[in-house]
C-alpha cells in the first residue's frame, strides 16, 4: 500500500481545465522532470515549504525583540531574513512551525494529506454548478496516475454521484493498472504529447517517451471504439517543443493513429518565481529562452503545421 498522496490544491470555479465549470484536484508528484514545468511545486511527491516574499510584512512590522517571528519559531535556525529565499533548505526538517507562526501566510505548506472522502466533500459542494454548466471534476497536478488506488476510489465516488470526470496526464503510467483502476470511471482524458523524439524527450523531460506513445495509441483506439474521450495536447515551449521537426512528427503520429483533433497550449512564462518560493534560485535554473511570451506569429506558425497535416485544432 503506497503512502497517501499529497494534494496540492483544489481549485474551484475553473473554466480552462475542461468543459463547463469545474473543480481541479492537483496531486503532488510527477515521474517527469520537464524543464518548463509550470507547477514546479508539483514535481516532488514530498511535502515542501513555500515562501512568497511579496506577502511578507518585513521584519520591521513582524518581529519580537528585533527578530522576525519566523526566525524565532524555527528550531533548526534555518530561517534568516537576510536570506532572500528565507529558508536554508538543507537545515529545514519540515516541522512547519514557521507556517503556523506566519501571520501573513507568506510561508505556506505545499501539499497536504486528504482522504478520498475529504476531497469528495470539497468538490461535491459545487456539483450544482457542474450540472448547470456541463462541468465536473478534473484531476491534474503533478501526475495523478502516481496514486492509482487513491484516484481509483475518488473516481468511483465521483461517478456514483453523477459527476463528469476528466484526467490530465503526461501519459507515463502502467497501462494495465490504469485500465483496471482508472479507465472505467473516466469520461475524458487530456493526454500530453510533448516531444516525439526519444532522445529529446529524455533530455528535456527526464524519461523515455516510449510508454507514453504506446499508452496514447491504445487509449485512442479504445476511444474510437466508443471509449472515453481522449484529447491529445501539446505544450508549445520556445526552442524545445516548438521546433518544426517536433511538431511535424507529432502531427504525423496523430494522423497515423486516426486522430482528428488536438490542442496546442501556448506558452506562459510567468511561473519562474515559483522556484524561488520553493527555495531554489530561478535565475540560475531557468533558461533565458523560457522567459518571454510567444508572439502571435510564432503561435500561428505552429498551428499551421497541424492544420496542414489535416488536424482540427481545439481552442
Amino acid at each position, binding site marked *: 500500500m503506497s503512502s497517501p498522496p499529497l494534494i496540492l490544491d483544489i*481549485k*474551484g*470555479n475553473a*473554466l*480552462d481545465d475542461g468543459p*463547463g*465549470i469545474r473543480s481541479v484536484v492537483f496531486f503532488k508528484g510527477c515521474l517527469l522532470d520537464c524543464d518548463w514545468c509550470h507547477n514546479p511545486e508539483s514535481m516532488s511527491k514530498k511535502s515542501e515549504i513555500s515562501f512568497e516574499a511579496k506577502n511578507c*510584512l518585513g521584519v520591521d*512590522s*513582524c518581529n519580537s525583540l528585533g527578530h522576525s*517571528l519566523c526566525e524565532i519559531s524555527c528550531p533548526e535556525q534555518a530561517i534568516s531574513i537576510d536570506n532572500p529565499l528565507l529558508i536554508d533548505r538543507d537545515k529545514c526538517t519540515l516541522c512547519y512551525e514557521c507556517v503556523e507562526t506566519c*501571520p*501573513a*501566510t507568506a510561508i505556506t505548506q505545499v501539499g497536504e494529506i486528504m482522504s478520498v472522502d475529504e476531497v469528495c466533500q470539497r468538490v461535491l*459542494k*459545487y456539483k*450544482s*454548478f457542474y*450540472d*448547470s*454548466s*456541463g*462541468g465536473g471534476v478534473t484531476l491534474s497536478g503533478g501526475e495523478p496516475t502516481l496514486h492509482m488506488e487513491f484516484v481509483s476510489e475518488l473516481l468511483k465516488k465521483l461517478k456514483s454521484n453523477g459527476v463528469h470526470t476528466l484526467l490530465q496526464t503526461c501519459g507515463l503510467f502502467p497501462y494495465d493498472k490504469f485500465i483496471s483502476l482508472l479507465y472505467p470511471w473516466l469520461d475524458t482524458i487530456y493526454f500530453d504529447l510533448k516531444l516525439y523524439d526519444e532522445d529529446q524527450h529524455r533530455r528535456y523531460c527526464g524519461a523515455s517517451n516510449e510508454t507514453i506513445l504506446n499508452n496514447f495509441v491504445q487509449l485512442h483506439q479504445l476511444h474510437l471504439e466508443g471509449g472515453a474521450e481522449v484529447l491529445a495536447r501539446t505544450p508549445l515551449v520556445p526552442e524545445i517543443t516548438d521546433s518544426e521537426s517536433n511538431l511535424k512528427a507529432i502531427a504525423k503520429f496523430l494522423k497515423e493513429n486516426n486522430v482528428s483533433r488536438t490542442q496546442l497550449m501556448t506558452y506562459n512564462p510567468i511561473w519562474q518565481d515559483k522556484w524561488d518560493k520553493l527555495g531554489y534560485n530561478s535565475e540560475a535554473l531557468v533558461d533565458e529562452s523560457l522567459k518571454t511570451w510567444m508572439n502571435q506569429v510564432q503561435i500561428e506558425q505552429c498551428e499551421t503545421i497541424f492544420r496542414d497535416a489535416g488536424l482540427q485544432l481545439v*481552442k
Partner: protein
Amino acid sequence: MNKLTHIPFITEQSNRLSFNEVFKNTIRKPLLNPATHVLLQVMAAQFTLRPSLNRYLKGVDGWINFIIGFKTLSGSVEQGISFNNGKVKVLTNIPRHAEVVLTFSNEDALVEMFRLPPNEALNLVLKNRIVLEGNLAYLQAFNFYVSLLMGDKHQKMLKKAQQDDELAREKDYGGGEASLCKEFKARPQYRMTCDSNMVKQDQGVNFLDDPYLPNYSLEDFPRLRGFLDDHLNHKAEVCAERAKWITRYYRENGFETDNDGNKPVPEIRQAQAYKYLMSNKRPIIRKNDLLAGTTSSYPITGSVVYPDAQGVMIWGELLSIDKRSLIPFDISQETIDSLHFDIFPFWAKRNFNEWMREQNDYPICQKINERWVAYFVWKSIGISHTIPDIPRLLEAGTLGIIDEINNRLKANDPVIDAGTNALKAMVLCLEGINSYAENLASLAEVQAEELAQQGTEVKRQKELGELAKICRKVPMQPPETLDEAFNALWITWVGLLNENADTGLSVGRLDQWLQPFFESDIKKLSSKKEKEAYIAHAIELAGCFFMRCTDHFPLGPDIANFLFGGASSTQALTLGGVTPDGEDAVNDMTYIFLKVTEMLSIRDVNVNARFNKAKNSNAYLDRLCEVNFITAGTPSMHNDDAVFASLKPHGYPQNHIRDWSATGCVEPTISGKHMGHTGSILMNLVAGMEMALNDGYHPLMKWHLGPKTGSVDSFDSFEAFFNAYMKQQTFLIDQSVELNNALAAIHAQYRPTPLLSALIDGSIKNAKDVTRGGALYNSSGVSNIGLADVTDSLLVVKKLVFDEKRFTFAELKQVLDNDFEDNTSLRALVQNKVPLFGSGDPEAVDMANRVAGAFHGYYNRCRNYRDGPYTAGFWSMSQHVAYGSLSGALPSGRKAGKAFTPGLTPQPSASKNFLDNICDVAKLNPEFMDNNIAFNVKLIPDSKDTREETVNTMSAYVKTYFDHGGMQMQFNVVTSETLRDAMAHPENYRNLLVRISGYNAYFVTLNKEIQIELIERTEYGL
C-alpha cells in the same frame, strides 16, 4: 483684534480678491480672526459699493437678506456677514438668528476653505471638518456671491485641477493597449441566434421568429443612432421652465395664503399650480422623434430645477456648474438670472428641508442627516420612487380616470372635506396633462404644415401628421396602437416628472402592459414583409422611448457626484417573470426591449429582468446573459421565488406579489398600487459599529450622539459587543425613521402630489393623496450599506478577541485608531486567519443572517407616516464608496477611508473561489431582504471562448445561484485593464456602462473613488 481700516486690495481697476495675499501676511493663528474679518470686509465693501455687484442682492420679491456666521470650535474665530436691504456688513459676533453657521473643527479647516477650489472645499464639509447648520439655501446664495467675486480665479483653479488630474491619470493608468477599447466596441458585432428548439420554450412569444433578433443592429436605425450620439455628446442643460411657471403662479396667487388671505388647501394649491405649469409648458417635438413631448425645454437632455425640493442647492454653483469636472451642466445666462433673481429667493424658505427645520425646530435627527456619514434621508429630494398604475392609464385614458374620480366625488359615502379636495386636485392635474397633449398636437400640425409648404421631408411630414392625430387622442382616450400607447405613456411621464423630482420613478412591467398593443397591431397585417417591417418599427418605437427617458438628468450639486456618483434618475424597467396568474410572462415585447437594451447600452432606463425558475425558459436566461455581455453591465437579474418569499410575510395577495416590479435600483414594489418609497433611507451600518467601538462617540462627527454602551474593555463577551453594536445602530435607525416620518408629514402638509396619486391604485377609492396614505399599499424602504464589512468585523472580534484570545479588544482598538499603521502583523492575522462571509464558512453565513435578520426585524416593527412598515434592503447605490471614505478602520482589516463592498457582495479576499461567494450570498434568508439586495460580480471575458460558451457559463452561474435561493445578481463584464484604460482615456469609452450597486452609470462620469472601487472589485474569469 486688529481693526484694519485701510483695505489694501481694492483699487479702481482691480475687482479680484487675493486671498493668498491676505494669508501670506496674516496666517498666524491668533490673527486668523481679524484676517477673516478683513476678507469679509472686502466682500462686504464690494457688494455694498459697486452697483454691478449690488444689484445681485435684490431679487424679484425684494432684498435677499440673510446672515452667515463663521466660527471655529475653539472660538478663536467668530465673524458674521450680514446681507440686509442692499447693505453688507461684517459682524464681530454671530447673532442667534443667523440663517447659517459654519463651524470649523479647527483653524486649518478655515484656511483651507478659503484656499481650495470649491469642489475640494466640499471635501471639508463631507469630512465634518466644517459643519454646516441652518438654511443651506442661504449658504448657497453666499457661495454664489463669492463666485461673482472670485470669478476667473475659481475657474483657473478648477482648470488647473482638471489638468493635474488628467496628467495624474495618464501617469497612473495610462499605457494600456489600444486593443482594449476595440474588444469592448466589437461586442455588439456578433449576436447569437436562438436555437429553434429553444424558441418554442417561450409560450408568450408569438410573432418573433428568432426572439434574439440577431439580424438587427443599431446601424439599422439611423434615427436611434442619431439620438444616441446626441445623448453621449451633449451635456445636460439646466432648465428653469418648471420653476419659472410655478413660481409665477404662486407669486400671483399666493403660497402660504391666497389672495383673499385664506390658507389654501395644499392639494388644491399644488394642483392649480401644476395645471398652470402644464398648460403653459412649451410643447416640443424633438426632430425625428416618434414620441411627442419633452421633460424639460431642452429636447436632448435637460436638468429640471425642483426648487421646492433640493433645487436651491445649486445656487452657489450657477457660475461654475458648466465647468466642474464631474457631470457638468450647461446653463444659459437667462437661466442663471432667472434662478438667482426670481426663483431661488422665492423658494429659499419653501422647500422640504426648510419646512422640516422650521416646523420641527431643527431636530437632532435632521442634524445627523447633515453630517453625511450616518444616513441619508431621501425625502428632501423627492418621493416618487414608485411605479404608477400604467395599465390603468392605458386602459382608461386620463378622461376615463377623471370620470372615475368624478363618480367617486358623487358617490354616496361620507367623503370628508379633505377627501373631496384630494380628488378635485387629481382632476386638475390630469386636465393639465390633457392641455399639454393638445398643445403637442397643435405643434405637430404646425410642423407638418411647415414641411408640407416647403415640400421637403415627406416621410417626416407623415410622421408629424400621425403624431398630431395621436396627441389629439392620447392620453385622454385609451390608446389602441403601440404608437399611441407609447405616446400616452410618455406624455404622462413628462407630466409626472414635472410634478415630482426625477428620482426613481419607474416604468414597471412594460413588456406586459404593451404586448397587447403590439399583438393587436401585428395581427392586422397579413404579409410576412409587413410584419417584418412592423417588428422593426416596434423596435424603433421602444428605442425612441428609451432615448426619451434619457431626456432628463437629476440636477445635483457637486456633492451629489460624491454621494451618488453618476446616477441618473434610475427609471427601472422590469422584464419577464410571471403574470399575476403565475404563467410565463416572457413575450415578444420582452425580447424587443432586450434588443433595444443591447443596441443602445444606456444607463437609464435601468433595465431589470425577473427570472422565474418554474416558468421562464433557458432561452430567455441565455439572452439576458448575452445582453449583459454585450452591454458590459445590464440588465440586473432577479430570482422571482426569492423575491416572492421576501414579500409574502407582508400579507400581499399572491397575484399582486407576482406582479412586482423593480423600483429605482432593484427594490420590489407591487406595480401601480404601492407607495413604497424604497430608497427613503440610505443607512450606514458601519456608523453604529464605530460608535460601539467608542462608547457612543462617532470619530468623524466628533459627536457623542449615541447611547453609552461601554468602552471596548468593558465587553466581557462577544455578545456584549454585539448588543452594544445593535444598540448604537438601532439608535441611528430610530433617528432616521424619525426624520423620514417628519419629512413625510411635511410632504403631506405642504406639497402633496395629486397627479401621482391619481395614477396609483387606491388613492381614488380612499379619496386621499398618496402622501397621506392613499395608496393601496404603503411602506418605506431602506438600503443598508456595509453588511459584509460589518459581518466580517464581528467575525474577527468574536474569533480572535473572544474565542481564541489572540489579543485584547483594547489592543485591537488601538490598532484601529492608528489605521493599522503600527501593527501590520495584527492586520495580517485579521485578514488571514478568520473565514469571512463569502468564504463558504457556515459560521460566517450565520453571522450575516443574524445581522440582516436583526435589522430586518427592527425595521419591520417601525411604522412610517402612512402607517406602513419599513423594509430592509442590502444594496448600496454608490454609498459603499461615499460612506467608506468617511469611515475609519474596521476589525475586518479594512483600512480607514476604503470603500465598503458594494451591496452585500463579499470581500474580495473572502475566497479565491467565486462559487463560495455565490453559495454564501444565496444562503442569506430572503425574508430578511424585503427591499432586495445587490450582489455584484465582475467577469472577465475570455477571448478564446465563443459567444455561446461565454453565455453558457454566465447562465450556469445565474441559474445555479438562483437554484440555491439567491435573490439578485448583477454583472460587470469588463476587465480591470479596460477600466484603467478608460481612466486614462475617457474619450474612448464614453458609453462604457458599469453596474455600481443597483444602478448603471457611464464609467467615465464617475468620481475617482468609485472608479477605483470598480477596478479593485475581484475579477472572475469567464
